[in-house]
């Protein structure tokens, strides 16, 4: 039915179109409803598929109208039971025409019933389904609740997981930081090993580890100095690094001590760069350095001592250079060789120590002045080590000196040798003092030895001088020249002075030079002077005719001449000069008295000088005119003699100048005495008759200036000053030697004295 309705309009439309066609031809007929119906029916097209389908269905329903099919159809479909009842062909069609509706309705009902049944089933199923769904829903709800719950709880977990993740990140960061920190603030296994293990030799690796440890401590200290103050880690790092560092230093110390013991035994030393660096580092640990250095010092002491003893006793290979002891009989060479050896050793030692402490040599040479005031601690160490190293040498040095040298010197009893040795020692003492310092053991030992050597020398010259004092002059020897004892003594003195002169370095000032020799001069010259004077005075007593005064002057002048070649004797010469002056004064007085006596004026002059005023001179015994006349006669005789220009006594003086001077002084006095006599005679109070005649009877006729002329002297009274000056100049020109000059100066003084008298 439903399928027919849509077809209807179309068929209608078709009908309409055909109607419109027929309209043209059949206009009248079309108005009739039947015809319309008919045409409509006729016009119906059953050819449509729907119709055919419907028919086919219908035919299927009444399957017997067709042949086999219809039979089969009911058999195949249990829903068509009535088909089976069909027996007559064609009957069915009829029946079908009759029963179509019923059949259809039956069919429909049947179909509906089936529908119902089926739907009932469906309904049941649906009910079950619903139950299931409800159950499912409950479950789902449960599940959802469960899920919500789970969700709730997992949220916490998630949160925690997130936290944990963050924490982990944090931890990671911390770890990185800590790793970095550890890398920066701790030592690696290798470094630790380098620092502490004995298997790792000291070298660059070790030094790097040390540096790192130092750096860590430095960084750590900086960190801890911050506002936060010291942290535990910081303290721990400091503690552990300090342990490691100490281990490192211990290792260095062990290395150094070992190395020092090893290399210290060589006579020549060389410093490896590693060694130098270890020392450089040890300087931060003074106590360890001290320990290492004392190990070095011990070894060096022993080594130097044994090499010194070898040099002393064994010499070089196959005896060259020969052992120093071989020359022990020659004390100069022996002492010189020993000290030169020591000096050379010091130089090598010094070089070694300088390179050990990394001091660049200052280009200074050994022996030149070293400045000890510089407070550099290396310098201090070097000084101490040097002192210790060479200090041990003092023992054999001292022994060698005291046993060998002193024996030799004493046995030879040679003042010169002992003095030379003392000077040599003094030279080395100065050298060593400048090289290893004033307080070094070697310096003090050398000082002792030097003092001993000087003592030996002084003792020997003292003994020499004492032998001099035991000498007694031969009373029967008339000679006035210095005796052999003095000559020999002077020879020794001269040699000693030469040694002293040559020991001077040229750097001393005058005082130093003088001070260095005064003691010798005191010991050697003073006893000689005393001996001369004492002995001559004794001899004079025994032999009054022996001219002791001249002898003494000769001896003194000789001693002075011996001294005069050396400048450092000025002081002693001045002392002797003083004695000479005294002696000259004595001799001058004595001589002028003698001259006065020889000239016959002595008594007259004495009387003139001492007479009392109330008694006139002409009444006194020695000055009565007759006596005076005789005296003047004698004077006149004397004036024509040789003695006026030359005194036989004074000619024994070895210094000619002194002779002249003394004699002249005597003549001056004589002239003055004569003048005084003349004046006295001329005085009316003395009541001489014809005083002028009396004086004029004999030469020089009472004329004093004539007397001056005879003596060949200037008139002192009138031209005293100018003549003095003139004489001085002349004398200066004539001076050949100093002592004469000085003698001259003093004779001038004596002139003065004689003038006063």
């Amino acid at each position: 039915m439903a399928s027919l309705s849509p077809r209807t309009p179309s068929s209608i439309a078709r009908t309409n179109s055909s109607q419109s066609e027929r309209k043209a031809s059949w206009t009248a007929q079309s108005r009739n409803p039947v015809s319309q119906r008919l045409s409509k029916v006729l016009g119906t097209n059953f050819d449509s598929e729907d119709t055919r389908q419907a028919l086919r269905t219908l035919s299927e329903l009444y399957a017997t109208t067709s042949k086999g099919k219809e039979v089969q159809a009911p058999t195949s479909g249990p829903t068509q039971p009535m088909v089976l009842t069909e027996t007559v062909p064609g009957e069915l069609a009829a029946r079908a025409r009759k029963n179509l509706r019923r059949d259809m309705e039956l069919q429909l009902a049947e179909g509906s019933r089936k529908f119902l049944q089926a739907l009932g089933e469906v309904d049941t199923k649906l009910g079950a389904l619903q139950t299931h769904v409800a159950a499912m829903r409950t479950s789902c709800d449960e599940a959802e609740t469960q899920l919500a719950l789970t969700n709730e709880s997992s949220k916490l977990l998630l949160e925690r997981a997130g936290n944990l993740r963050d924490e982990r990140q944090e931890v990671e960061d911390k770890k990185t930081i800590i790793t970095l920190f550890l890398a920066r603030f701790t030592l690696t296994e290798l470094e630790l090993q380098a620092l502490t293990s004995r298997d790792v030799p000291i070298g660059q690796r070790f030094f790097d580890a040390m540096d790192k440890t130092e750096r860590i401590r430095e960084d750590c200290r900086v960190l801890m100095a911050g506002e936060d103050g010291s942290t535990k880690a910081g303290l721990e790092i400091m503690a552990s690094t300090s342990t490691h560092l100490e281990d490192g230093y211990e290792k260095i110390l062990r290395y150094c001590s070992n190395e020092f013991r090893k290399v210290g035994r060589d006579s020549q030393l060389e410093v490896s760069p590693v060694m130098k660096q270890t020392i450089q580092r040890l300087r931060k640990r003074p106590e360890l350095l001290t320990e290492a250095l004392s190990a070095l010092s011990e070894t060096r002491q022993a080594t130097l001592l044994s090499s010194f003893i070898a040099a002393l006793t064994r010499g070089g290979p196959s005896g060259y250079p020969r052992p120093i002891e071989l020359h022990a009989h020659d004390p100069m060479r022996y002492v010189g060789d020993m000290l030169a050896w020591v000096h050379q050793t010091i130089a090598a030692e010094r070089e070694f120590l300088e390179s050990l402490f990394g001091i660049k040599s200052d280009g200074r040479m050994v022996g030149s002045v070293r400045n000890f005031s510089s407070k550099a601690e290396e310098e201090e160490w070097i000084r101490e080590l040097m002192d210790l190293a060479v200090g041990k040498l003092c023992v054999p040095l001292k022994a060698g000196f005291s046993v060998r040298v002193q024996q030799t010197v004493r046995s030879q009893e040679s003042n010169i040798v002992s003095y030379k040795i003392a000077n040599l020692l003094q030279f080395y003492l100065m050298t060593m003092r400048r090289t290893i310092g004033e307080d070094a053991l070697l310096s003090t030992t050398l000082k002792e030895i030097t003092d001993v050597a000087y003592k030996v020398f002084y003792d020997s010259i003292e003994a020499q001088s004492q032998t001099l004092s035991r000498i007694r002059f031969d009373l029967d020897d008339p000679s006035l020249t210095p005796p052999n004892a003095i000559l020999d003594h002077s020879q020794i003195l001269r040699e000693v002075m030469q040694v002293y002169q040559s020991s001077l370095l040229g750097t001393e000032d005058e005082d130093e030079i003088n001070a260095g020799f005064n003691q010798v001069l005191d010991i050697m010259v003073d006893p000689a002077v005393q001996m001369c004077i004492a002995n001559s005075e004794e001899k004079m007593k025994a032999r009054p005719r022996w001219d002791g005064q001249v002898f003494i002057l000769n001896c003194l002048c000789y001693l002075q001449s011996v001294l005069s070649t050396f400048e450092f004797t000025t002081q002693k010469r001045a002392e002797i000069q003083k004695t000479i002056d005294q002696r000259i004064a004595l001799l001058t007085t004595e001589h002028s008295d003698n001259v006065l006596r020889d000239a016959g004026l002595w008594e007259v002059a004495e009387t003139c000088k001492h007479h009392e005023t109330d008694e006139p001179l002409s009444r006194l015994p020695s000055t009565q005119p007759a006596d005076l006349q005789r005296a003047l006669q004698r004077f006149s005789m004397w004036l024509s003699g040789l003695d006026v220009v030359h005194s036989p006594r004074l000619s024994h003086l070895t210094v000619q100048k002194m002779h002249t001077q003394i004699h002249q002084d005597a003549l001056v006095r004589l002239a003055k005495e004569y003048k005084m006599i003349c004046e006295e005679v001329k005085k009316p109070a003395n009541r001489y008759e014809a005083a002028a005649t009396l004086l004029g009877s004999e030469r020089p006729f009472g004329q004093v200036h004539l007397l001056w002329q005879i003596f060949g002297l200037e008139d002192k009274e009138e031209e005293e000053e100018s003549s003095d000056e003139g004489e001085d100049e002349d004398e200066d020109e004539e001076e050949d030697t100093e002592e004469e000059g000085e003698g001259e100066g003093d004779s001038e003084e004596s002139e003065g004295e004689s003038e006063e008298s």
Partner: protein
Amino acid sequence: MAINDYEADATELLETYDFLMKYIVIGEAGTGKSCLLHHFTHNSFKDHSQHTIGVEFSSRTVKLGEKRIKLQLWDTAGQERFRSVTRSYYRGAAGAILVYDITNRDSFTNLGRWLADARTLASPNLVVVLVGNKSDREDDREVEWAEASRWAAENDVHFLEASSLTGENVEAPFLMAARAILLAIESGTLDPEKAGSGVSYGDRALRRVNSSSRLSFGSLSGSARRRGGAVKLKVKSWIPGSKCC
């Protein structure tokens, strides 16, 4: 050029060395021993030099071929009064630099005495180099080069003239002596192992000895000879037929 080579090598100051040699510098007073030495060690002329007092010490490391040699130099006073002191320093010297002044004939005529002293007192293998100092003062020359050269040949010592003022040939005598000593060691006449020879091994040489059983100077001899020849051309003062080179 050869001289320049020398100086470049020689000025190199080194810590370690193969050999240590002891030298003495001797000769009359005023011949310029200290100045020569000063120029050698400081590379400059020493103005206002005073007389040396006793003995003074200095040292320097030189390079000869492949060998580094440390020289311990003992500068002695020439004055007669220090003779007793300085003579003690001859002991065990390996080399002696005998200096005279070409402008002072006396300093030349006295050489015999100095040489005799050195030969008796120093080690028997002493190598002596005669140096005519003050070669810059040609105008005042009193000792002819030929005469000194003859004397040197007669006495079997090396000879050259030098000037401590200009620095000419200042290093050569020290190097000549060092070379002669090394050759003596090589030929076996000198044994550095023994004390008192004036020579001893340094650290470097010892290491080498330890590492190889035999100590060889092959390289040294070759280069030394070459160098020696070069110097000869320049210096003109080598004695033909002398032992060294």
